[in-house]
């Protein structure tokens, strides 16, 4: 896991000049990969209106980490199992029920298991805190290769599926007519979220990953309706947010999750304001809400 005790982080409090030295380099690298993945996936999360799934899969997967620590297995394995299991469960059950209800139930089941594992395993509260809220200053060199590998797989898979995913999100009927099965796209989308989750939760935590996926992409969507540009903007905004958040967290020793949350909401507010003042006109609403009919 490599999550340091919380006191270490306070001890690591320093000036901006030190922020690029030593172990912090790993943090910058890992955070950059996370932000790119979050931006790319976030675009589809906003397009599909799937914020609940983006919240449920990382959040529920933390139970897997708790199970892994109870059984003495690798955290990544536990996270992956629960993330993929949750994703499959949601897409299987939502064929016969409403998706938001099924997502809520799947999330709650995973969290319930997590609370049981935690109560059985005498885990330190600090560890749980960092799994949920993230502790990005705890990345060590050995963790970097799997993060980079999974991140690359995630981004490449998303870009390969870019056209069918966009089509089935925006115009499901037209997609079906062209042989793009909406249910299959749904499944691959949820699995991509699960993959990204496995990679990012140990580094940035479940809550932070969620903020980083939703807020930048939502801001980007307010600024442009063009898919490619929106995705690029989402990645850019996510990068700026995480870099700023790391620097701020390093300097004043407050948790990074707070800065990501605040900066994310701020960027969304700014984008909405910009949208409101600069795009007044007949097509303003259409641009703001996207091309969905």
């Amino acid at each position, binding site marked *: 896991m490599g999550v340091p005790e*919380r006191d270490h982080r*306070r001890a690591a409090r320093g000036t901006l000049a030190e922020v690029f030295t030593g172990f912090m380099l790993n943090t910058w690298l890992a955070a950059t990969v996370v932000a790119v993945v979050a931006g790319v996936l976030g675009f589809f999360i*906003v397009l*599909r*209106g*799937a*914020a*609940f799934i*983006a*919240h449920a899969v990382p*959040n529920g997967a933390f139970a897997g980490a708790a199970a892994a620590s109870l059984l003495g297995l690798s955290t990544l394995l536990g996270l992956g199992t629960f993330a993929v299991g949750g994703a499959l469960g949601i897409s299987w059950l939502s064929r*016969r*029920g*409403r*998706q*938001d*209800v099924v*997502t*809520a*139930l799947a*999330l*709650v*089941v995973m*969290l*319930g*298991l997590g*609370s*049981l594992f*935690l*109560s*059985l395993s005498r885990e*330190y*509260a*600090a560890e*749980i*805190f960092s799994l*949920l*809220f*993230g502790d990005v200053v705890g990345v060590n060199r050995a963790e970097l290769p799997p993060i980079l590998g999974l991140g690359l797989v995630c981004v490449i898979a998303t870009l390969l599926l870019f056209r069918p995913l966009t089509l089935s999100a925006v115009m499901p009927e037209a997609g079906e007519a062209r042989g793009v099965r909406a249910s299959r796209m749904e499944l691959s989308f949820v699995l991509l979220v699960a993959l990204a989750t496995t990679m990012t939760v140990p580094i940035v935590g479940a*809550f*932070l990953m*969620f*903020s980083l996926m*939703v*807020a930048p992409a*939502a801001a980007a969507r307010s600024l442009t309706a063009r898919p490619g540009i929106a995705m690029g903007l989402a990645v850019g905004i996510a990068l700026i947010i995480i870099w700023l958040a790391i620097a701020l967290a390093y300097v004043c020793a*407050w*948790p990074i*999750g*707070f*800065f*990501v*949350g*605040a900066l*994310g*909401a701020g960027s*969304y507010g700014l984008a*909405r304001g910009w949208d409101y003042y600069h795009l007044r006109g007949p097509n303003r609403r259409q641009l703001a*809400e996207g091309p*969905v009919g």
Partner: protein
Amino acid sequence: MLMRPPIQAWSEVGDLMGSIFGPGLFQSSPVQVALIVGTVVAVVSGVVGVFTVVRGQSFSGHALADLGTAGGSGAFLLGVSQLWGFVVIAAVAAGTIDLIGPGRARSRDLATGIVLGAGLGLAALFLYLDTTSSNTSGASMTILFGSIFTIDGGLVPIILGLGVVSLGTVLILYRMLLFSSLSSDMAVARAVPVRLVGIGYLVSLALAVSLSAMTIGAVLSTALLIGPAACALRLTKHPGLALLLAALIGVAVTWVSIVLAYDSFYWPPGGRGWPVSFFVVALIFTLYLLLQLPARRWASKWASRSAIIDARPAGP
């Protein structure tokens, strides 16, 4: 306190009852408080939950609970009762969600996501400050996962009062709420104040969620909100009956969970009870899965009746 020795009366009832209910279950005052509070919370959550499911606002319901983490930890920081933290933050969040994302399901989903992200950031900060200022990192566990056995008995009247307010709002708005949930456009055409009704509903949702966040924890209160309602709507399509059934299922699940959690003190690995919230979730999910089975077999009979669910507005 939870481990009072069995009193004489129990041996008369018999070993069987004793082994089901555990020694001293009903004499223990934390258990009494837990049963009272659990009942109130289950009824309120069940009733409000039916509308949450019908309106497709499960995400809002869950987000309000998660945001309660910020409220709970903020209250802990200020030294006031957690309940007020939960209530205040839920009301503020409900207002904000309605402000930036009214209307269609997709924009509401997004608005909920943004508010949730910002709120979780605040929660991270408050929890951090809690742990650094008072060195009780267990606080974050209590806020997240709740503890129905440690509720202060003095809070019971307040919890009852808030529950009544929440339930009352929903029942007063019942007809308008049902109408605007099933067909928003028709309701507008009939001069139902849809926006106002929606806000009234969000307030009662915020209250219901705060109460359950208090008892079974912020991250699991969704179980009591969505679970019984989803089960009830599988059993009946009649709205009034669904409210009643959801409340009943919620209460039954809560009681069984409290009893099981009390008994689990003697289960492996021993010396520590299993969490109530785990039993709540496990029971509700099992029930939901069981209810899926007849729905498939008797699909023509059950699922295709003219239904609340079928008549709902389309959307993700």
